[in-house]
């Protein structure tokens, strides 16, 4: 189908973009990669009166380490993350995940920040943001907000972002002494995840788990941090039985949907199996 009519603004800088959003009071949409927004417009699920295109803005496409964080700016494409920006585990995790985000043409246009703004619960980046406690930096004419990922995802395709705000950058903590695992099940290469899991883990000198994070995609209406499951492992030795208990707890605590692709029971099963495998991968690398 064809989108309904809209006005188009090729923003020259971020202030012009923010001004246009403020002026249009909820009727405008921000265009970055457009790989989710434009399909929604073609279906007329989204009917903005103004499209504010960020692409002409020159200085929004950087990925760099700043202190203890990896900073990803608004126009960083999925494909830009396929090669790690530095040698830290966060960059390497992103490179591993990036290759499974959509198909090649989608990866070459779609953006990391746009994926978070779209908030598809099956999206890999939303899960990674939840796992790492990313900070989403949102600007408007009213000022700049730093929103923790734990407060960002409100529901299906719904976030804490206000209509006049633009995500200018996302800040991910560098995994210093932690290792990670990432697992995904999808119907075909490049398809949305049916379920995906990411685990990060650091093990202390005494062989006990100092910190563990486990996040899930495709398991609920938002990305999920499996907090109770995580708590079962902190301070414990990562034995096979302990990891199995963590994965089981993660599956017990989610309430996934049934849809055309698979049943809720199958999704819950995937949560358990893929959580276990991500934890195994993380701990295999940690030890």
């Amino acid at each position, binding site marked *: 189908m064809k989108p309904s009519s809209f006005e188009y603004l090729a923003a020259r800088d971020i202030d012009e973009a923010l001004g246009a959003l403020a002026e249009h009071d909820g009727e405008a949409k921000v265009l970055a990669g457009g790989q989710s927004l434009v*399909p929604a417009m073609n279906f007329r699920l989204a009917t903005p009166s103004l*499209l504010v295109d960020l692409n002409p803005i020159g200085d929004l496409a950087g990925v760099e380490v700043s202190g203890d964080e990896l900073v990803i700016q608004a126009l960083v494409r999925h494909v830009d993350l396929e090669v790690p920006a530095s040698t830290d585990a966060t960059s390497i995790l992103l490179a591993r995940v990036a290759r499974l985000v959509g198909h*090649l043409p989608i990866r070459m246009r779609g953006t990391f920040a746009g994926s978070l703004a779209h908030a598809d619960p099956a999206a890999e980046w939303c899960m990674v943001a939840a796992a790492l406690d990313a900070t989403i930096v949102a600007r408007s004419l009213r000022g700049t907000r730093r929103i923790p990922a734990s407060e960002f995802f409100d529901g299906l395709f719904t976030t804490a972002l206000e209509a006049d705000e633009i995500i200018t950058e996302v800040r991910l903590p560098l995994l210093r002494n932690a290792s990670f695992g990432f697992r995904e099940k999808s119907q075909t290469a490049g398809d949305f995840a049916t379920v995906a899991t990411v685990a990060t883990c650091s093990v202390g000198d005494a062989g006990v788990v100092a910190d563990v994070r486990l996040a899930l995609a495709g398991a609920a209406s938002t990305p999920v941090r499996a907090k109770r499951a995580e708590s079962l492992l902190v301070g414990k030795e990562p034995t096979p039985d302990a990891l199995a208990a963590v994965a089981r707890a993660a599956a017990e605590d989610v309430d996934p949907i049934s849809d055309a692709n698979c049943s809720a029971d199958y999704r819950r099963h995937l949560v358990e199996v893929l959580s276990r495998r991500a934890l195994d991968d993380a701990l295999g690398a940690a030890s």
Partner: protein
Amino acid sequence: MTSVTLEVNGRSHDLEVEPRRTLADALREDLGLHGTHLGCEHGVCGACTVLVNGAPTRACLVFAVQCSGSRITTIEGLASDGTLHPVQQAFIDNFGLQCGFCTPGFIMLLVGALEAKPDRNDDELIEILASNLCRCTGYRSILEAAKQAAVDLRSAAAKTAK
């Protein structure tokens, strides 16, 4: 209406389009380049794939107004002096099409992917091809065409390097 200058297959075109005009519709309706096919119009089938600055792009997910100043290549711009592009030739040699509707999209996808990086193994080619749909389900021969094209483009690149 908005003025836009599209550079398509090396020729510059000044157009007046509505902002909602997708690149695919501008190519087909305003420029008469019907080789770019439209299947789903929501980014799933890949039939409308063209190159924008060399990158394979779903032309139904980009608006023409976004493409001012970009280099666009469509299936019509691949052959030069009557010689088919190696990817086009590989599709003929391997019977990589049946009805042909998906073919321009598959070819542009592969041209973009292989010209950026000709050194791709079979698994990578399969992953790339998963981007597009062929409803005749001729995937096996499309994969064979992709493999031949990768070999041909590698040897062409090696010759140029010498």
